[in-house]
C-alpha cells in the first residue's frame, strides 16, 4: 500500500493515524503540508525516525521546494521523489490510501 499524508503533523493527527493504522512494509509519501513532517528538527521527527524499520518514507520534492525546504535537514532515510516518482510508487504498490 502507498499511503499519502498531506497535513503538517504539528497541526493535525493525520501522520500519527497513518503510522498507527498502516500495515508494516507500506510506503508513506509526504505531500503538500505533509512535507513539514520530514524536517529533522521538528517535533514529529521521532515519530518517523522510530518507524524507519516498518515503513519506507518519501517526501515530494516540489512540495519541499515550494516551502523553502530544499536545503533543510530532513530526517535520515527519507527519500525525495518528484511527481514521476509519486506515479511510480502508485504503480508499484497495489493500492493508494490518502490520509486527509
Amino acid at each position, binding site marked *: 500500500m502507498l499511503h499519502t499524508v498531506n497535513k503538517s503533523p504539528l497541526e493535525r493527527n493525520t501522520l500519527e493515524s497513518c503510522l498507527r493504522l498502516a500495515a508494516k512494509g507500506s510506503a508513506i509519501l509526504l505531500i503538500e503540508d505533509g512535507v513539514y513532517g520530514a524536517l529533522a528538527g521538528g517535533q514529529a521527527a521521532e515519530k518517523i525516525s522510530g518507524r524507519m524499520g516498518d515503513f519506507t518514507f518519501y517526501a515530494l520534492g516540489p512540495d519541499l521546494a515550494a516551502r523553502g525546504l530544499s536545503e533543510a535537514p530532513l530526517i535520515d532515510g527519507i527519500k525525495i521523489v518528484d511527481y514521476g516518482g509519486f506515479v511510480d510508487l502508485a504503480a508499484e504498490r497495489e*493500492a493508494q490510501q490518502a490520509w486527509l
Partner: protein
Amino acid sequence: MEEDDFDPEVVKRFLFVNRKAPYGTVYALESLETVLISAAFDQDVSVVFADDGVFQLKKGQDTTGINMKNFSPTFRALEGYDVEKLYVEKESLEARGLTEDDLVVDVEVLNSEELSKIMAAQDVVITN
C-alpha cells in the same frame, strides 16, 4: 462512456475510510452517499470509522437546532444494501470516551493492529 463499460464479473475490495466528524464539514454525509451507491455495483465493500469519524455513529444526534439533515439513521439502513462490514477502531473510541454502546449501529470493534490488516488487504481505498 457507458455505465456497462466494465466487466460485471469483476469484484474488487472497496474500502471507505471515515476519519471526519459529521456536520462541521460535508465529508461524512457525501462519503455515506458514495457507500450507498457502491452497494449497487456488487463489490466487496468495507467501511472503517477511525479518529473523529467514530462521532458519525454517535447515538442521540438531533440536528433540528442547526437545520441540517440528521443522516445517522442511514447507517442502520446499510445492512439492507448488503453493506455489512462496518469496522470501528477501538483506540479511536477510547480516545473519545465512547464505547460500542454509544453507537447507532452494530459494528465490529477492532484494535489498530487488527484493523490495519483489513485495511491493507484492499484494492480501492476511498477517503474524503
